């Protein structure tokens, strides 16, 4: 942690993440209004004393909606990433440990999946699953799997021939013991770093799916959906677009900066 806070990027990441996680943990309780309540006398307003961040086309308080959307947005990013990381790590470790033919076949299949742009892959899966928040989460998780598998595999390959692994083998430890106790703990660093950075991508893709109408559905307070709904009125009240846009950017940036700082802390040589 000390190493992370030693760079300005790390400090910025920690500050942003603290704000975002506070909103995610307590948002629904500190919101000044009910996020679905129509204030019919105050539609499409800019920031004011009564509505700090303004209101949308139904007069719903934007600050309250943002705060209410925070837990699901952060959970979505972490959930989708965890799914991709778990599935990818299992596949990557199998490929890396098995080597040879199994490795070759797995890698070719991963190459095929990676040959499609990530968003396209996600769109295909989410359409097949039928749209909705859970479906979007699954789709992003599946789309992340091949990339994570590659990273896990190369992390495994880099420790596979280290002395401590050879020593464990010489001691006659079982294969699963070696993988779980020697290989994984030493290969986990790059996987965690990549996962942290990917949370920000997951949040951005999730918001994009919400925007395209394939993720969360109205009247959800999902941030991408909020931008999409506010777009119709963007020339009358740009705040409806700007506020959720800033919320998405802050969250994505927080995870991004924190992930970069984490990588530098793991590997001081890379910090330039």
């Amino acid at each position: 942690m000390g190493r992370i806070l030693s760079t300005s990027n790390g400090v910025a990441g920690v500050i942003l993440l603290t704000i975002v996680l506070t909103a995610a943990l307590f948002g629904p309780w500190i919101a000044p209004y009910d996020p679905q309540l129509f204030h019919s006398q105050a539609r499409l307003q800019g920031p004011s004393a009564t509505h700090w961040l303004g209101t949308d086309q139904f007069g719903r308080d934007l600050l309250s909606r943002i705060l209410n959307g925070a837990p699901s947005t952060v959970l979505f990013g972490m959930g989708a990433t965890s799914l991709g990381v778990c599935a990818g790590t299992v596949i990557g470790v199998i490929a890396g440990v098995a080597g040879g033919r199994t490795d070759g076949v797995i890698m070719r299949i991963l190459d095929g999946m990676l040959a499609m742009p990530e968003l396209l892959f996600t769109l295909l899966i989410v359409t097949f699953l039928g749209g909705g928040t859970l479906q979007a989460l699954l789709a992003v998780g599946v789309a992340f799997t091949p990339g994570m598998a590659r990273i896990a595999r190369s992390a495994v390959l880099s420790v596979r021939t280290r002395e401590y692994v050879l020593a464990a083998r010489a001691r006659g430890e079982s294969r699963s013991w070696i993988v779980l106790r020697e290989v994984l703990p030493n290969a986990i660093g790059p996987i965690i770093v990549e996962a942290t950075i990917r949370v920000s991508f997951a949040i951005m893709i999730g918001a994009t799916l919400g925007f395209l109408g394939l993720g969360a559905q109205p009247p959800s307070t999902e941030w991408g959906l909020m931008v999409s709904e506010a777009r119709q009125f963007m020339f009358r009240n740009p705040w409806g677009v700007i506020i959720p846009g800033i919320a998405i950017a802050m969250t994505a940036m927080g995870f991004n900066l924190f992930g970069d700082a984490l990588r530098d802390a793991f590997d001081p040589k890379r910090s330039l």
Partner: protein
Amino acid sequence: MNLSYLIRRLVAVLVVMAIVTVAVFAITNVLPGNAALMILGENATAQNLAALERQLGLDRPLLVQYFDWVSGVVRGDLGMSLRLGLPVAEVVGSAFINSMWLAGLALAAVTVISIPLGALAAIKRGTVYDTGIGVFSYVGTALPEFVTATLLLVLFASPANPIFPAGGFADPMEDFGLFLTHAALPVATLGLVLMAHISRQVRSEMSEVLSSDYVRAARIKGLSERRVIWRHTLPNSMAPAVAVISLDIGYLLGGIIVVEEIFAWPGLGRLLIYALQNRDLPVIQAITLVLAVVYALSNLISDLVIAKLDPRVRYG
């Protein structure tokens, strides 16, 4: 680099393409509700459905359908669009050209702007300028395209202040100026994210070169700073820059989906969203395949360019 390397790489591309066709076919054929149901609607009778399924060949085993589709692809026959009543090759072909104009323009703009930007940040490391580029690159990569696009529309295409058209397309072959005004906002949207990412990568690659032994040697030799940068640093930073740009092409190809949808650009992205909404399977399959081929080929080309730029890279 030699011919056998090139052939091996092309074969590898073909293998990946084969896997992509399987993946695309698998995903599109587990879509709930098949094409016949989609065409006839919810109220279709079982008889009509069966007849149309037979007509479209959907009643045959999946394996037969797959090989039928692949052999068509190889012959350049992508089938008929289920919704538009036109050959897929025709529809996708014209959309492809429009998309390539957009992607090509964005890529050119990004390359021209972000390499000097990143290089300057590396040279002026630790200054206000460097910090500014750093902040810009983090903000740029954290804004999804649909947010940037919407903000650009508010700023530059509002009814009160219509500097650029809010959407649409003009044929560059007929009126290039008009085409550019239509392309301005989509290109700016795509460019912002890519510029942010690429300039950061170029900065970090170049910082590494600047702290290398041969640059130090050049300085000790007493070469002017200008010569150190132009002759020793920049040429050695170009290969990594190309590598970064080629990786971002996958991102660019994903980005055009959203950007084309927002700006009503008649390209592959917009066509894909339409096809997905209408379960137009042949069109979905063709677009996915085209994008995968473009991505694979651009990776191959960038590897060849890198080998040309950096004599240390040998492919054997």
